[in-house]
């Protein structure tokens, strides 16, 4: 009996939660709408939140060519500041993430992006881990008792 009551309570709770979730997911659509942005004190003012978040996420993905072990977000060196400005101007112009990365790669090489391109020379890097796990899983399921 006790077990049953618990189950009942759980069901009710679940229903309430699902309702609430639906409700907030609906309201979410509204809150994502671009609101009034107050940017007079911003170092990098944007007219839209999408552009702003693109800008800051790019700073985290781009490598500072001078300090080398830091991204642009984490560096205050003069070259980083110049590159931030460059990225800022490109974002404001409405360039996409891909275009901006290409723009910088054309000048600084692939070194400048922390995410290596997918090309024949990097196939091992990108697909190696997954091939390795599939292969070893296969081997282990087939012959697990003999080798381990």
């Amino acid at each position, binding site marked *: 009996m006790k077990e049953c009551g618990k189950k009942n309570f759980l069901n009710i709770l679940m229903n309430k939660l699902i309702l609430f979730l639906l409700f907030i997911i609906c309201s979410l659509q509204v809150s994502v709408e671009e609101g009034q942005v107050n940017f007079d004190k911003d170092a990098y003012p944007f007219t839209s939140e999408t552009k702003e978040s693109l800008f800051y996420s790019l700073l985290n993905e781009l490598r500072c060519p001078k300090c080398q072990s830091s991204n642009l977000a984490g560096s205050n060196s003069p070259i980083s500041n110049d590159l931030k400005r460059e990225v800022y101007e490109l974002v404001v112009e409405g360039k996409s993430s891909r275009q901006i990365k290409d723009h910088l790669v054309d000048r*600084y090489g692939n070194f400048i992006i922390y995410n290596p391109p997918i090309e024949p020379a990097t196939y091992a890097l990108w697909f190696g881990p997954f091939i390795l796990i599939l292969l070893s899983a296969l081997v282990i399921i087939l012959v697990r008792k003999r080798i381990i």
Partner: protein
Amino acid sequence: MKKIIDALPLVVFASLIIVLFSFLSDKDDQLETALIDSSFPDFNLGSLSDESRLLTKQDIIKLPALINVWATWCIACRVEHPFLMKLKEESILTIYGLNYKDNKLKALDLLERDGNPFEFSIYDFEGRLAIDLGVYGAPETFFIDKNGLIRERHVGVIDERVWEEKFSKYLNE
């Protein structure tokens, strides 16, 4: 078969050690330039010596040439200055300067005092042309061949040895 599987970890690890050993030899920590064999980027910047004179790519006419990125805050630039003067005095090739994020007065002072190896210096206070060239520090030196293509870049002090190893071959093409 079993023996081969047992020896596998050994083989893999031994090859890793060999690979790592080969990486140990002294490493050149220069960044490659992405601009090899591409034409010199467009720019529109003032001249260091004459504010009113606007320079563009069309002003770089005496080819082949070196483009040297320099600044007064850069200590290593002073080290290579005599070598650049020598290149100029022996009329080996033209050198254009790219004065990078510098104080104009100090820069002109330095050229006055130590001599001016440059045909002219582009004044790039904001580092705009520098970004288009993929510059990440000073000094840097680019070789532009007679067709206006970038053929080589050197990061750091340029001297007799670097000139012989990296640049002189393009001059004799």
